Every structure is written in structure tokens, then in C-alpha cells.
């Protein structure tokens, strides 16, 4: 247990080998994770608890931690404290000691404290608190085995004990005193307390800290100066612009290299023809059409497709899209995200963005779900948990699902309309802010101010980066492939049954009248419910002008969350989700309709 971002998840990972994501912005762990570790021949269950500042639950995460304690009275606790922020951590530690569980204190991030010239006398601290105190550097696993050894021998001192020890350390005067509150606070002797009030606890914290922490001369190093400059608006904003440029440029280059450079060849020149030849049935049969190649009719003759994109087969388009186009994009995205996270830049970005985000009723924190959503909307919506009020969560969830395209969509857009991807993204982002602003005005409630730690820059630990990327990519694949396969299968079957045509005819007035796109967009829109990237690919096969394609793509991005996001929204938002849907429909008609208006004014089709 411990504060957010002290390294609990890192310790958990090093002890159990389990995959948990650790970051330096709050809200990363919101549910507790269980893992198993082997220590000296026995299997021990270890639980990673979301960060809490105290045991008075103020938001979901803290409530979870408290429940954990109540449900497991026999549990031994590793209280993780950031050695460079001892006072904060001590408050929670004293609280935990009061609870009476066997406890060990892990004084983590020892290396950072050292860099800051902060020294903590661990032995003294231990003698004052009556619990073992072990310095650790979780990211390099130092001190962890000692930690585990000590944990199994840990005792349960209780708070009166702490008072007693403080007295012994020279605080109190009276011999008869048994460490009651009175002495600590300079009052007369009183009864032996069971619980301290908040102020009393802080007083105790200060007493302990005074005796154990020595701070050397604080030199403002180059790293600190850069740390400050990257958060100051005048210097930080250009830097942020550069970082975002690098992000986008690397993303573009990498996905271009892998997809256009290799995947297209592999799929179009080898996979497709091979399947076309080998797959049972041959052209014309139903199963062939659905699984491999639907083909198209040219001049009255059925001709085979030449690229995986147009073939529409489950095994061809499906695999090509997910593995050839989307996977490389998502992969590089996650790598860069993990690097930015670990280096400590994201909180600074959040501070820089907070001003603007506050205008739309959100926090700087909102940067996190937004960036996550650019990878995949599902974890992005999940991350809205870190926002404090219902209103914020609703607004964020809604505009995320509506306006932020996921990495898969972006990758396919890049493939299909490379020159206009930027424009589409800009238009969507504009919608994000505009509607965020409107929603903020319309929905009652205020947004609390931001309070956030700005961590020191540090070298990213490649091991953690690798782990995070592997985890996120794997979970993405698990979500992607089944749904794409299902999507193409269903759409193809519907096509062959003529259901799509019927649907298209029925909705023609809406599509052609209001949006100005051909009626066949009904088909891909159906597929968009399952996977949006698939829908965009299918759109590109329908004959229409470039501008119509742009409108259609914007429509697909906005109109309905993909099934993964759909379920996540239900889970996170509950009833509010239906409110989101209504907003969505309104937005779809207005924002996309507006686009069509723009085309009309420009005089293009």
C-alpha cells in the first residue's frame, strides 16, 4: 500500500513477475491486482493496491484499498514510501500502524532521494516507528529480497508504541508518560490513545521527520532547470509542440515503412494469390467469396481482386488490416507512449494543457485518457476513472468516444486518404473542444482544480517499457482480431443476402440528402459498430469523390463507438451512457452536416 506513484506496482511486478502497468501520473492502478510470488519455497499471494493518501476514502481507488484491509485482517502490509517525500508517506504509515496490521516500510526511490541530496536515517526511523524500514530501489530490484525476508518477521506495534519510542528518543519529559498524545502536542499527560486525529498525526510526522531526514544543499541541476523550463508556458509550449511533432512524425514514418514497405507486398503479392489459388471452392462459391475474395464485376465479368484491401475476404482483408496496417501503428504508438510516460514528461504536458482543458470543464489529467484513446478508445474510456466528478467523467467519456479516433482508424486513414488525414484529425479535434465546451456549459456541476505532482525527469527503464508495450499490444490484439473477423463475416453475409442494399435504400434520404454521401455507406457503417478501421477500409471501396470520402470517414469516426468502446462505456458510465448516445446522434448530424455545408460553400462535391 502507499501513495499513488511511489512504485508499488513496480515492486509488485518485481516480486511476482506479474504484468502491471506502472506510471508516474495518478490513476494508473484502479483495481487491485493479485499475484503469486515464491519466497524461500513457499507461495505467497501478493496484492497490488491502488494508491491512497490516507485511509479516509475520498474516491473510488481509496475506497478499494480500505476494503482490502478490512477484508484481510491477517494481511501483512508493505507500506511503500517515496524516500524523497518522506513526510507524506509517514502520514499513511502512521495510519496503517494504527490499524494494527503487521507492517514493513519500503523506503522506495532511494536513488532519487540520493540525487536530491536527501538522506533518511532508516535505522533511526525504524527504531522510532517500531517497524522495519528497508531502503529500496524498486526499478532495479534493490532491497527487495531483504524486504520480503523482513516482512515475514514483521510485528504489529500500534500507535501508542510509537509515542513511547518518541518519548524515549528524547521528546518527552515525564517518566510516567506512556506516550500519549499530550506530550506530543505539548499538553499535559492523558490517556493512552487508540487513534490520532489528523493534526496530531501530522505533528507526529513532523517530529519523526525532524529526527530522521537530513537535506543537503539543494543544487539546481541542469536536469531540474530543464524540468522547470518544460513546464513553464513560454518555454514549455514550444517544447511540447516539438514533442508532439516527433510523436506524429515517428508514427507516420514507422507505419509507412512497415505497412507500405513490407506488409502490402507480403499480403498482396503472396498471401492473396496463394489463398485465391488454394482455398477450396474457388471463385463464385459462397465460402470463397466470404473468406477470401468477394471480387467485383467489371464490364459484366467477375474479376478477382488484386489487393487485400479490396478483396473483402475474412482471411484476406481481415488479416491484412489488423496485422498489416494496424498492428505496426499501434505498436509504435505504445512504444512512444511508454517512453514519454517513464521519462516523466506527461504530467508536464498535463499542466500545460490544463488551462485549455479547464475551459471545456476538464483537467490537465484529461490529457491521459485522450492520449490513451489515440491508441485505442477502450483503455482511454477506462482511464476516465481518474477524473473526480461524475460530470467530468461523462463529458470526457462522451467526447472521447465521439471525437478521438483510435490508432487503428488513424492507421487506415493514413493508408486510404494520406493527404487528408491531417485535415480529418484537425476537424475531429476541433469538434472535441467545441462540444466539450458546449457540454461543459450545459451540464450542471463544477470542475475541481488540478492538484498534481510533477516528477523529476528520469531515464526510462527499458525493461518496464518493454513490458508495458508487450502488455498493451497483446491486449489490443486480443480485442482486435476476433471482432474484425466477425465484422467482415457478418457484413459479407449481409451483402450476399442483399440486406445491405435494402438498408442502403431505406436510409438513402439521410445519407444522400443530409450528408451528401452515396447510400452504400450504410454497409460500412454497420461494420463500424464492430470495428471502425474495417469500416473505413470498406468505404474506400465504394466509388465516391474524395470529399464524400472525407465526409464519410468523419461520419464513421463520430457516429457510434466500436463494440469494445461501447461495452466499456456501459461499464464505466452506467446510465449516463445513454446520455452520451443522444449527444452522439446530435453531434453526428450537426458536425458532419456542417462539413457538408463547408463543401457546398467551397463549391465542391
Amino acid at each position, binding site marked *: 500500500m502507499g501513495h499513488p506513484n511511489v512504485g508499488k506496482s513496480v515492486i509488485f511486478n518485481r516480486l511476482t513477475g506479474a504484468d502491471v502497468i506502472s506510471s508516474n501520473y495518478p490513476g494508473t492502478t484502479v483495481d487491485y491486482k493479485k499475484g503469486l510470488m515464491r519466497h524461500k519455497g513457499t507461495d505467497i499471494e501478493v496484492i497490488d493496491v491502488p494508491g491512497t493518501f490516507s485511509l479516509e476514502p475520498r474516491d473510488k481507488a481509496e475506497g478499494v484499498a480500505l476494503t482490502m484491509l478490512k477484508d484481510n485482517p491477517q494481511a501483512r502490509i508493505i507500506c511503500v514510501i517515496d524516500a524523497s517525500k518522506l513526510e*507524506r508517506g509517514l502520514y499513511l504509515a502512521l495510519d496503517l500502524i494504527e490499524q494494527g496490521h503487521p507492517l514493513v516500510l519500503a523506503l522506495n526511490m532511494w536513488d532519487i532521494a540520493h540525487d536530491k541530496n536527501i538522506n533518511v536515517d532508516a535505522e533511526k526511523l525504524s527504531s522510532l516507528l517500531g517497524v522495519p524500514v528497508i531502503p529500496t530501489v524498486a526499478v532495479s530490484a534493490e532491497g527487495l529480497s531483504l524486504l520480503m525476508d523482513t516482512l515475514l518477521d514483521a510485528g504489529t506495534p500500534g500507535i501508542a508504541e510509537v509515542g513511547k519510542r518518541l518519548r524515549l528518543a528524547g521528546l518527552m519529559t515525564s517518566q510516567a508518560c506512556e506516550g500519549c498524545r499530550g506530550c506530543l502536542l505539548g499538553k499535559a499527560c492523558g490517556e493512552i490513545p487508540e487513534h490520532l486525529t489528523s493534526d496530531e498525526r501530522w505533528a507526529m510526522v513532523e517530529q519523526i521527520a525532524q529526527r530522521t531526514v537530513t*537535506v543537503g544543499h539543494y543544487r539546481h541541476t541542469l536536469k531540474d532547470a530543464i524540468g522547470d523550463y518544460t513546464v513553464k508556458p513560454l518555454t514549455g509550449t514550444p517544447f511540447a509542440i516539438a514533442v508532439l511533432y516527433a510523436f506524429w512524425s515517428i508514427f507516420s514514418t514507422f507505419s509507412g515503412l512497415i505497412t507500405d514497405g513490407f506488409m502490402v507486398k507480403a499480403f498482396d503479392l503472396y498471401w492473396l494469390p496463394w489463398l485465391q489459388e488454394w482455398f477450396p471452392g474457388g471463385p463464385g462459391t459462397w465460402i470463397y467469396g466470404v473468406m477470401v475474395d468477394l471480387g467485383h464485376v467489371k464490364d459484366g465479368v467477375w474479376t478477382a481482386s488484386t489487393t487485400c484491401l479490396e478483396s473483402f475476404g475474412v482471411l484476406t482483408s481481415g488479416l491484412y488490416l489488423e496485422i498489416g496496417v494496424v498492428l505496426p501503428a499501434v505498436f509504435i504508438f505504445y512504444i512512444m507512449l511508454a517512453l514519454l510516460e517513464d521519462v516523466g514528461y506527461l504530467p508536464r504536458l498535463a499542466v500545460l494543457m490544463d488551462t485549455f482543458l*479547464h475551459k471545456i470543464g476538464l483537467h490537465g489529467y484529461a490529457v491521459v485518457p485522450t492520449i490513451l484513446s489515440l491508441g485505442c478508445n477502450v483503455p482511454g474510456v477506462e482511464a476516465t476513472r481518474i477524473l473526480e466528478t461524475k460530470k467530468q467523467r461523462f463529458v470526457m467519456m462522451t467526447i472521447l468516444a465521439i471525437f478521438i479516433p483510435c490508432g487503428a482508424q488513424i492507421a487506415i486513414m493514413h493508408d486510404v486518404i494520406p493527404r487528408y488525414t491531417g485535415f480529418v484529425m484537425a476537424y475531429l479535434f476541433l469538434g472535441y473542444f467545441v462540444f466539450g465546451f458546449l457540454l461543459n456549459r450545459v451540464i450542471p456541476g463544477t470542475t*475541481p482544480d488540478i492538484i498534481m505532482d*510533477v516528477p523529476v525527469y528520469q531515464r526510462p527503464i527499458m525493461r518496464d517499457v518493454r513490458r508495458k508495450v508487450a502488455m498493451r499490444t497483446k491486449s489490443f490484439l486480443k480485442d482486435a482480431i476476433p471482432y474484425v473477423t466477425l465484422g467482415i463475416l457478418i457484413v459479407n453475409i449481409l451483402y450476399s443476402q442483399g440486406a445491405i442494399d435494402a438498408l442502403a435504400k431505406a436510409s438513402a434520404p439521410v445519407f444522400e440528402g443530409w450528408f451528401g454521401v452515396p447510400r452504400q455507406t450504410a454497409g460500412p457503417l454497420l461494420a463500424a459498430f464492430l470495428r471502425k478501421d474495417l469500416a473505413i477500409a470498406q468505404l474506400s471501396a465504394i466509388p465516391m469523390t474524395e470529399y464524400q470520402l472525407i465526409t464519410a470517414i468523419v461520419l464513421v469516426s463520430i457516429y457510434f463507438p466500436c463494440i469494445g468502446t461501447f461495452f466499456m462505456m456501459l461499464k464505466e458510465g452506467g446510465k449516463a451512457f445513454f446520455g452520451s448516445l443522444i449527444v452522439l446522434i446530435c453531434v453526428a448530424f450537426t458536425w458532419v452536416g456542417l462539413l457538408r455545408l463547408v463543401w457546398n460553400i467551397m463549391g465542391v462535391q
Partner: protein
Amino acid sequence: MRLSHIRKKGIGMIKDLYELAPDEQGVIVAIEGGRRHHLTDLGLRVGKRIKMVTRQPFKGPVVVQVDQVTLSLGKGLALKIKVEVA
């Protein structure tokens, strides 16, 4: 400048945290409002030395340093923390 918030008291002037200039330092003398415990959790208590690092434009948050830790606070909060400048 919000003159009503600047009074002379004892050695130094008392200002809202929000009004400190970059690199200006002081000691926290009071914290108003209902979110006190959030602030104390992060180490901002009466008696602590605090230093302003930067402000963000358009009524944005401030970045401050307490006990060698850098954090960011929204404007509303920064207005509720009173600091004796010294």
C-alpha cells in the same frame, strides 16, 4: 493586483499563493476551503516553505515547489493558500 489581499503583517506581506512571482518564496500561513486535506496529503501545510516556479496563462494552474517536490495546483486552490512572503 488584488489589493484587498495584500496586507502587511509582521515581517512580510501576506499574499495569495497565486500572486507570487516566479521564484518568489514564502511560508504558508493559512489554507482556506474544503480541500485542505487534499493539499496536506501532498505536503502543503501551514508552516511549510513554498516557492513559486511558474504560472500558466489564461487563469491556468501554478507550479510550485515544497520540500523539494514540484507540484501543480489549479488557480482556485492557489487563491486559497495564503503565504507570508519572505
